């Protein structure tokens, strides 16, 4: 009972932290990491809901199958998202940002 | 059987401080090469002691063979990756720590 509660609360906190990071950060790799942490929290809640201690009967295998499928799907989604992030980084107009940043740097050092 | 079980427990008790010394060495040592030294001690000797202790306690040959296979794989992986890291650090001209 306490194990179910502990891991469910952990999954909830992980989901909340991942959502917070997904909203406030701007780097695409950080966003992909945050989505991974959010999916981990959901899996943790699903498996913790199916947990029973060792003497109290068998464990329901349906959430385990769902979580197994979800892990494999999340890895492939991560690979696709990383590829898309690389393409965005390579095709966006970065020289303009670099020039603006180098123009802005002496101002900061003067301040 | 009692002797085998107790000697296995003794080997496990010997193996656990190697992991802790590896962690403490990884935190306290001043240089990347000395940290590699601490890391390899934890990998090889600590896991070796634990694997030998568990193999003495498990009464079947298949479990013993699987434990030794795990130890062999960890040995290969740790030696290969530590050698790669040390060679790459030497190529990048990271100076070893000297007592100054």
């Amino acid at each position, binding site marked *: 009972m306490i194990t179910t509660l502990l891991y469910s609360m952990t999954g909830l906190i992980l989901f909340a932290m991942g959502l917070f990071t997904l909203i406030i950060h701007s780097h695409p790799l950080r966003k992909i990491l945050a989505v991974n942490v959010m999916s981990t929290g959901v899996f943790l809640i699903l498996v913790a809901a199916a947990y029973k201690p060792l003497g109290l009967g068998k464990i329901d295998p349906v959430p385990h199958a769902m979580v197994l499928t979800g892990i494999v799907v999340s890895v492939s989604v991560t690979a696709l998202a990383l590829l898309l992030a690389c393409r965005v980084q390579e095709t966006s107009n970065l020289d303009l940002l670099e020039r603006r940043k180098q123009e802005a740097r002496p101002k900061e050092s003067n301040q | 059987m009692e002797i085998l079980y107790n000697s296995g427990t003794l080997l*496990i008790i010997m193996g656990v401080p190697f992991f802790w010394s590896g962690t403490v060495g990884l935190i306290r040592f001043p240089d990347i090469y000395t940290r590699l030294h601490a890391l390899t001690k934890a990998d090889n000797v600590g896991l070796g002691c*634990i694997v030998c202790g568990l193999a003495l*306690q498990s009464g079947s040959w298949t479990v013993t063979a699987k434990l030794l296979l*795990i130890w062999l794989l960890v040995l290969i*992986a740790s030696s290969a990756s530590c050698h790669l890291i040390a060679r790459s650090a030497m190529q990048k001209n990271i100076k070893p720590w000297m007592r100054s």
Partner: protein
Amino acid sequence: MSWIHIIFALILLPAIATGMFRILRGPTAADRMMTAQLFGTCGVAILLLLSAGMNNPVLLDIALVFALLAALATVTFVSRTWRDNNKNNHGNLIQ
């Protein structure tokens, strides 16, 4: 079920939490990767002790998979990420 193995697994688990300090303040990128490798070995040891403590031989297979894939992240790091970067990247010489 034998409680002494589970106690040793419980002793090994804070080693992972302690080694996190080196990831957080490691000066070079290789220090962080070495700490991840130590975590992998600690995880293998914890899995072996739990499989002896909980009478579950399936955990040996999980430890076997961990031992197989332990070198993959480090080799990728050395061959892809850490090679040919400049001095100001990833906190190598300048943090």
